[in-house]
């Protein structure tokens, strides 16, 4: 296991290099000039030239890339083109809400999703199965902002129990977590259901039944663990994509998170921020995926990760 972990951590490096290269190529591909955006729309050509020179934008791309990597190795992610602040300050300053939001929402969606999925599978084709499917599909088909705004309407304006914007207190955190968690639980529920159905008429489930253990134990202890691999994959993806920025939800609830930062940076062609953000994402992602792989192994000892 230790070997596996070290190996995977080492593999982070090529991933990080990969994303930085990809981001740099985007700079080449997409229109929009950071110098222009920084210097303002009305800057004179001479001014632009100066800005480009100062930002090193005139160097050949490989040189810029190496400069950048050199900086990263020294722990310097550069400065935002738009605000001039250090990228690390901007990015890490927003990491906490994003990670917290992702974490709590995933927790919630795992909780709701698995229970709903199990109920759905156990009572296949019953009313509750159908209702859960409807709810899940509705949750998926309506964009996140919809639920977010509805929750604000009901629980902020309607009852005054919660706060609509910001992040930190429970009053601020519950609604966004609910918004994201509900959406996430939809897919987890569906995945759990189908995966459970695969497992539920296996012989060893009969054995468990023959032992006389309660149906709850049969389902949650025997069947569920065997059905978890696809579910864990989806949860990992879910968590990852939330880390990658739940932009719509962050926007609706005015949460000062990474997702919004990156989107704004992309729109402003603030590439140092984008680079920094993507690097952090990549790192988190690799990390989440390591956890997922370790969980695979935990769930099923036959899975050989090496």
């Amino acid at each position, binding site marked *: 296991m230790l070997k596996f972990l070290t190996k995977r951590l080492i*593999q982070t490096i*090529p*991933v990080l290099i*990969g*994303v930085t290269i*990809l*981001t740099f*190529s*985007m700079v080449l*591909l*997409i229109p929009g000039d950071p110098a222009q955006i920084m210097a303002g729309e009305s800057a004179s050509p001479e001014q632009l030239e100066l800005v480009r020179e100062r930002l090193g934008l005139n160097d050949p791309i490989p040189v810029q890339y190496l400069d950048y990597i050199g900086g990263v190795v020294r722990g310097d992610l550069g400065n935002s083109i738009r605000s001039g602040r250090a990228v690390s300050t901007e990015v890490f300053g927003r990491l906490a809400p994003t990670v917290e939001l992702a974490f709590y929402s995933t927790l919630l969606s795992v909780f709701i999703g698995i229970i709903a999925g199990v109920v759905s599978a156990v009572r296949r*084709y019953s009313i509750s199965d159908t209702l859960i*499917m*409807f709810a899940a*599909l*509705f949750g*998926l*088909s*309506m*964009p996140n*902002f*919809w639920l977010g*705004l509805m929750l604000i*309407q009901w629980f902020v304006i309607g009852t005054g129990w919660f706060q609509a914007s910001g992040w930190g207190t429970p009053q601020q955190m519950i609604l966004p977590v609910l918004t994201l968690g509900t959406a996430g639980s939809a*897919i987890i529920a*569906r*995945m759990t*259901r*189908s*995966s459970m*159905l*695969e497992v539920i*008429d296996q012989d060893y489930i009969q054995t468990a039944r023959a032992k006389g253990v309660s149906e709850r134990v049969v389902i949650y202890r025997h069947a569920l663990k065997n059905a978890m*691999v*696809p579910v864990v*994959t*989806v949860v*990992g*993806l879910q968590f990852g*994509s939330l880390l*990658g920025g739940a932009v719509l939800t962050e926007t609706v609830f005015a949460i000062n998170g990474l997702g919004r930062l*990156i*989107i704004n940076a*992309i729109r402003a062609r603030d590439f140092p921020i*984008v680079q920094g*953000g*993507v690097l952090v*994402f*990549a790192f*988190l*992602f*690799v990390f989440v*995926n390591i956890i*997922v792989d370790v969980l*695979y192994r935990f769930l*099923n000892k*036959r*899975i*050989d990760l*090496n």
Partner: protein
Amino acid sequence: MQEEVNLNSGDPTGKQQFNPNVVRFQDFMKKFYRNKSALIGGILILALIIVALVGPYFTPYAPNTQNYSNLLAPPSVEHLFGTDHHGRDIFSRIIHGMSITLRVGFTSVFIGMTVGVTLGVISGYYGKWVDTIIMRFMDVLLAFPGILLALAVVAVLGGSLNNVIISVAIFSVPVFARISRGSTLEVRELEYVEAVRSLGASDFRIIIRHVLPNIMSPIIVQATLNIATSVLTASGLSFLGMGAQPPDPEWGAMLNDGRNYMWNAPHITMIPGIAIVIVVLSFNVFGDGLRDALDPKSRN
């Protein structure tokens, strides 16, 4: 080469003249029919396709005709689903937008699934450095902001509908890859895979015949659900100039349009939302049925 060698006296009993491939398919269909949900799902999908194809000829209004004297009207006899903020008839727009929405949702999922599952299964099956390379590459893709990728696609290929489909498909490749890899890791350790390997089956054969059928159900679930997310993602990219552009009545775009009117005219958001639900529901019901039909143990 040695087919004439007869091991024992056992007389060949195959008297029926049939093509086993056809039988296999018929068999599948038989089960499929017996399965109510598959049938309902199939009928729904068929109905959707028919409506998408011929519906536009029968709508009460043109989808883009504006009427500024009748904005945001709630559903009524005259306007079944009400009108939007340009006074357009939402019912007609829903019908007209169906084919484009279905196309975006279905095609992008199909492409993403094909590529993703291929990569995921190869990765999970072979493991070792193949797994490392493919999965780290998927990590890169996942970590990379989709918008940036979409921007690049627009810059290089332009903003056509096909390109939005490609972009959305690219986003879903790592999702399918990870799901199919996870399940493959499990299946490849099972004894029957070992048994087939001992018969000398090629890896390709094992993957196609033995791994894939046994990892289908999470893939089916992901695919049927992804139709909804793809429609939403695709319309989320329209601000980059990708895909459906106004006034095309693409559902995801209609849904987003309603955002400013959620309080005075909630139906503008709800109706396309429900329309998407219905499409996704059809595919999900169908997917459930497909799963059951593929499962030899569930026969009713």
